[in-house]
């Protein structure tokens, strides 16, 4: 075991795992995390805590991960390259591990100008960092764990048990490079991969075939991303504005014709999970409720993913 995390244990046992995403509040309200953990408890094996997503200030991923742990749920702490240099990243990792966090997902992070794209103001004038890219970030964490060395070469005393994750946008442009980039992330040391939300299962299956031809699913556990749709408008928005998210026209039509779009959204997510599960090399799903955590129990239940298996502890 590299980390002993519940996620790693279940994957190594060959279980089909479920992770779910949870955004920290734009406040210092610990209660907001507790509320979400109440909805999410038992619906997945581990819970991704986002790191200032869309470059909007939120409670830190590290702190929210610890609150998540205290609530008895296993966090996957996300860490973006936008806001920290290699010194801060390694420091936060040592702190996170000391506090009991065992999973970390490495990401480039949305550019700071992204915040103003939505309804919020964000901080488009912030100075970004991008000292490392996410691939070198993965490599740095693997070095901490496996070689007991900081990136600069100084020794690290003791163990840094971590299960290291990376993201993959399989249908992002330029699509011919996406499998190569996945391979680089895995070569750098990613133990698990969580993908961008998939709606076009056919195209995703084709890309997965290319990934299999490169022998990638054997080297890292690939969890397919599922974004729970709430409305036809949301599907259209994602198709047009969220890079790498491709929504087939027939799905948008089906949603707009639905009487109860929210119920239809849950049905679509459940179907996606069932279809994607059949693709060879998929070891689990990563569900993103996007501020609709209360939908998670129904989804896990209807997709036949309950009860979640016990880890050895």
């Amino acid at each position, binding site marked *: 075991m590299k980390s002993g995390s519940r996620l790693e244990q279940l994957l190594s046992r060959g279980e089909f795992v479920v992770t779910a995403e949870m955004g920290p509040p734009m406040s210092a309200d610990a209660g907001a995390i507790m509320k979400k953990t109440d909805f999410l408890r038992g619906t997945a094996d581990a819970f991704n805590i986002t790191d200032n997503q869309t470059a909007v200030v939120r409670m830190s991923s590290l702190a929210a991960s610890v609150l998540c742990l205290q609530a008895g749920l296993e966090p996957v702490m996300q860490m973006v*390259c*936008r806001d920290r240099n*290699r010194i801060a990243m390694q420091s936060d990792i040592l702190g996170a591990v000391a506090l009991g966090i065992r999973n970390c997902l490495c990401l*480039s*992070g*949305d*550019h700071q*100008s*992204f915040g103003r794209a939505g309804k919020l103001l964000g901080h488009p004038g912030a100075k*970004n960092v*991008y*000292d*490392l*890219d*996410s*691939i*070198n970030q993965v*490599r*740095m964490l693997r070095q901490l764990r496996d070689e007991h060395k900081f*990136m600069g070469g100084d020794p690290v005393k003791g163990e840094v048990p971590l299960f290291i994750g990376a*993201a993959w*946008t399989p249908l*992002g*442009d*330029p699509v*011919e*490079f996406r499998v*190569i*980039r996945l*391979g*680089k992330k895995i*070569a*750098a040391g990613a133990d698990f991969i969580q993908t*961008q939300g998939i709606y076009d299962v056919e195209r995703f299956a084709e890309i997965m075939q290319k990934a299999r031809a490169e022998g990638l699913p054997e080297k890292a556990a690939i969890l397919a991303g599922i974004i729970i749709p709430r409305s036809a408008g949301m599907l259209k928005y994602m198709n047009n504005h969220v*890079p*790498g998210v491709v929504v087939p026209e027939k799905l948008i039509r089906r949603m707009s014709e639905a009487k109860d779009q929210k119920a239809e959204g849950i049905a679509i997510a459940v179907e996606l999970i069932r279809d994607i599960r059949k693709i060879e090399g998929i070891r689990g799903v990563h569900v993103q409720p996007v501020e609709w955590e209360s939908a998670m129990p129904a989804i896990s239940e209807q997709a036949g993913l309950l009860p979640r298996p016990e880890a050895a502890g």
Partner: protein
Amino acid sequence: MIVAQRKPLDEIIAKAEPFKKVVIAGCETCVAECHAGGKKEVEILAAQLRIAFNRKMVPVEISECSIERQCEPEMIESCAEQIAAEEAVLSLACGVGVQQMAERFPNLPVFPGLNTTFMGTHSAPAKWEERCAGCGNCVLDLTAGICPIARCSKSLLNGPCGGAHDGKCEVSEEIPCAWAEIVERLTKQGKLGQLRQIIPAKEWDTARDGGPRKLIHGEAAP
């Protein structure tokens, strides 16, 4: 070349207003190329200031000079006598020229009339684009001659982030994704496979992060 653009006129007027005699000093090299600080721009700005001060009934006398390269101390000497007789200098050079001018005339207030923008190229008529971040450790051989440090919004070294879309950057539809261009060029060259290798994290000590940089040419140094 160094690309710059003129500061807004109101900002320049406010800076010049407290003085009786101001010289506008142009620079004939990079900033003249990008129509920001050459002789012609000095003339235009001088005319605009004279009109503005006339209207405001503020007695500021504007004179003009133009220097081949304000960043070179010996070239500033061509106008030194004229400048020394002034109360303030409004420099239309890049930030290097402004500082050189301030160093030559330590008792004179020197104001920038331009915003120095980037190192770039004249990519189309009336259009300039950033091409180099001066990071001190060039990787252009690895990236098909397209700089990921200067041209990727996140300075990524190992391929496009998840935000690339239709060859554009997530920051704006106006910005081409540098990595989409790198992938395209290497695909055409049949060398996409070279990107399978991980480009190691950059050591930024050769960039601005290492503090102000200095270069001493070993052979040419006296």
